[in-house]
């Protein structure tokens, strides 16, 4: 019997869907003969007594979830999400560098610095990549700070705003779709697949439309119905980052499957597990019984 620590915070528990997902996780671990402790930031040092750590709060290299991940890693405790995955996925520049290096098919992508934010540069990008362009501040999560630029003025305004938060920003070719594929990957293998149906009037999975927050709906898809190029792209993209738990967003087009991004700490509470009822069993097994194989902290 092993002890699984689940790192949570008040925000995690204030959401009914997330709370329900955490209880599913606990039940799965207990059914497998393990015990589960929920660990809050204030008691972070308790994680040193755990046999494995599963992080279920927003991750960023600058926040307390990263401290938990790194502490686990420093003390050789198997952890999902591991620090290297957080560091890469939380920063779109770093993430796209990894995808490019591993020949993963992504939309045309450029990293711009302050000196690149000019009307002339914007014109060239619109001429070459079409309208609109997508601008991303590297620390975006849940589609925040991902915006369309429809003209040069739009481009300048958004880029200059994002530049206040990061010295580099990401500009991408826009690829239209009614839904995003989400391929969940654990340890380099498929964990689940679903479609995120994008709400009307937006191009993001979560957005504010006319003052209201709108969310995508989730449609779980069995393995047999995943188009092979989508599955292949998802696995390849996840493996380009590491061997942990990832949610890979993919847009399927006539000329193939484009990886839009790889997320660490993917949502598991919105019906992603519809066709995959053993998601949590596999995560628990990965952490407690297999010792998170292949996850290593490059910085240790």
């Amino acid at each position, binding site marked *: 019997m092993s002890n699984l620590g689940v790192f949570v915070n008040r925000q995690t528990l204030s959401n009914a869907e997330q709370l329900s997902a955490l209880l599913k996780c606990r039940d799965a671990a207990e059914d497998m003969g393990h015990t589960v402790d929920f660990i809050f*930031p*204030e008691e*972070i040092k308790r994680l040193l007594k755990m046999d494995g750590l599963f992080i279920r709060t927003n991750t*960023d*290299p*600058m*926040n*307390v979830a*990263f*401290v938990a991940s*790194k*502490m686990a890693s*420093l003390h050789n405790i198997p952890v999902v999400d591991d*620090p*290297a995955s957080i*560091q890469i996925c939380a*920063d779109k*520049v*770093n993430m796209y*560098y*990894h995808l490019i*290096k591993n020949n993963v098919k992504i939309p045309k992508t450029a*990293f711009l*610095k302050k*000196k*690149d934010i000019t009307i002339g540069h914007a014109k060239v990008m619109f001429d070459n990549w079409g309208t609109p362009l997508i601008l991303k501040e*590297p*620390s975006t999560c849940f589609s925040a700070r991902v915006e369309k630029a429809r003209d040069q003025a739009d481009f300048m305004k958004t880029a200059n705003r994002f530049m206040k*938060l*990061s*010295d*580099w920003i990401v500009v991408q070719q826009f690829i239209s779709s009614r839904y995003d594929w989400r391929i969940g990957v654990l340890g380099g293998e498929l964990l689940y697949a679903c479609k995120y149906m994008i709400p009307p009037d937006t191009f993001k999975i979560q957005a504010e439309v006319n003052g209201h927050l709108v969310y995508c709906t989730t449609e779980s898809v069995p393995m047999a119905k995943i188009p092979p190029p989508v599955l292949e792209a998802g696995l390849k993209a996840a493996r380009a980052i590491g061997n942990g738990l990832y949610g890979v967003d993919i847009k399927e087009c006539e000329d193939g499957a484009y990886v839009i991004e790889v997320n660490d700490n993917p949502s598991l509470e919105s019906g992603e597990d519809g066709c995959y009822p053993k998601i949590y069993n596999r995560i628990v097994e990965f952490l407690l019984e297999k010792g998170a194989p292949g996850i290593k*902290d*490059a*910085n240790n």
Partner: protein
Amino acid sequence: MTAHDRKDRFFKEDSIFTVSMDDSMHVVSENHFYKSEAYYTVVRNEMSGINTVPSSGQVIEAYVVPICLEKAKLSGINVSDWEISYQYASAPCVIYGLNYFSTPSEYFVVKDEEAAKDVIKHVTNKGKYPFCYQKLVEGANIVAVTSVFGKVVENDDHDVAEMIANVYRLFKIPLFSAILIEYDGKYSLSSLGPVRYSKLTRREKHLLGEYLQSRWAPFTEGETQNV
């Protein structure tokens, strides 16, 4: 123009220098912070297969206070005990923010719990984010030192020099500021943070200049200069 004036012009704000030493490219900057130009220079080098010092991981480890202290402790460096909280800190203590917007360069020494309340409200954005605090014993002093390639020129204490040399070996950041807590002649590490060129003393600039003297290249916009 004096040699000192020339050095001042040399160390312009936001300048990044690359130095080849020990089969590695050392990226020297007054700010390696996450998502800064220097940070992305390191990331780009790493993705190009260039052995780069510091690594992007070392930068993040160094500048997130609890991680810095945990890693330093595991390597035998004397560190200050730390706790994480959202609302309460046992005073007297040193308080650091722990969120997307915080920097270890901004720390607060609070003497009593009433004073702590205002600081906590500020660093947590009214309770939204956690913070890190380190308890201070009565009579403890806060000491700030600057490290230039692991050397301290403005503090003569042998223990400080040895600690900073060890910290440099661990995190490999060419230029950093260290906050130490001194009590009864003993030092413990409290945090590491970036240091502006403009805050360097003449002797520190001289030492940094010597490191850069033989093989340096001022960073030009948009390009990494290999030297």
